[in-house]
């Protein structure tokens, strides 16, 4: 396969992809975050039920019960969910690709209020109610 990357990291960061590029990057970060969280969570719930692994399971639990991790993982999950629905709709009904920019605006209008409210709740809980 002739897959050679001729673009360095700094040059790549200067690429002016605007809205669609931002959602693409955040979709990747979000997806990887969810994979890490779900893998940890499956392992922790498995270990917690084993006599030899209870303390390891509880230790992993404390990682993602931390409110900073929750801020991160809720961003990942919510953004990946909403952006994913946009990708599915635009990919399965390609005539709608004409309205991609409007769809991305709509997506942020849905995402920001929900994430903002959740952020307030998580931070208030993190600071002790």
């Amino acid at each position, binding site marked *: *396969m*002739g*897959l*050679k*990357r001729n673009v360095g990291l700094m040059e790549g960061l200067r690429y002016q992809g605007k809205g669609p590029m931002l959602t693409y990057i955040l979709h*990747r970060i979000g*997806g*990887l975050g*969810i*994979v890490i969280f*779900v*893998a940890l969570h*499956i*392992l922790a*719930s*498995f270990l917690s*039920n084993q006599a030899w692994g209870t303390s390891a399971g509880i230790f992993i639990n404390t990682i993602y019960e931390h409110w900073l991790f929750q801020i991160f993982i809720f961003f990942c*999950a919510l953004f990946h969910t909403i952006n*994913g*629905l946009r*990708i*599915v709709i635009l*990919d*399965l009904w390609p005539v709608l690709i004409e309205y991609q920019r409007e769809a991305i605006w709509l997506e942020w209008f849905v995402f920001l209020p929900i994430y903002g409210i959740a952020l307030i*709740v998580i931070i208030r809980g993190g600071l002790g109610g």
Partner: protein
Amino acid sequence: MKTKPRTAPQRGFHFDYLMWLFTRLSALAMYLLAIVGIIAALLMSARQNMTVADLMRWAFMPNPNHVANTNVPDVEVWKGIFWQVMGILILFFAGAHGLHGLLNVLEDYISRTWVRNLLRGLVFLVWVLMSAIGIYVILTS
């Protein structure tokens, strides 16, 4: 220097196209399963006895452990074969969707064919292993 021409992607149904389609359809399937979970939870008195965060945990994975710390009167109602099948379905769609996505991201940064093939095998093994552990957890909780 003359560059080597790249082979054109195969047309029609092949593995990568099927996985592309599976990624979209499994996303829709997970939306459907989560909506079923939310509606059923609301019918099972979630509105009086659960917070939104608990409801979301239940929607992502309908496991009785996720309602054990809420005010629901009878946790036994939230167990059973139906919810185990729902959990395994969500685990299957989410696991395949997520690990195929992980593979997609990794392959964007890897050009050597043998490393890519190695990673494909590795990610497949991780998928089988994590699915087995997950199904064990669902069936024993």
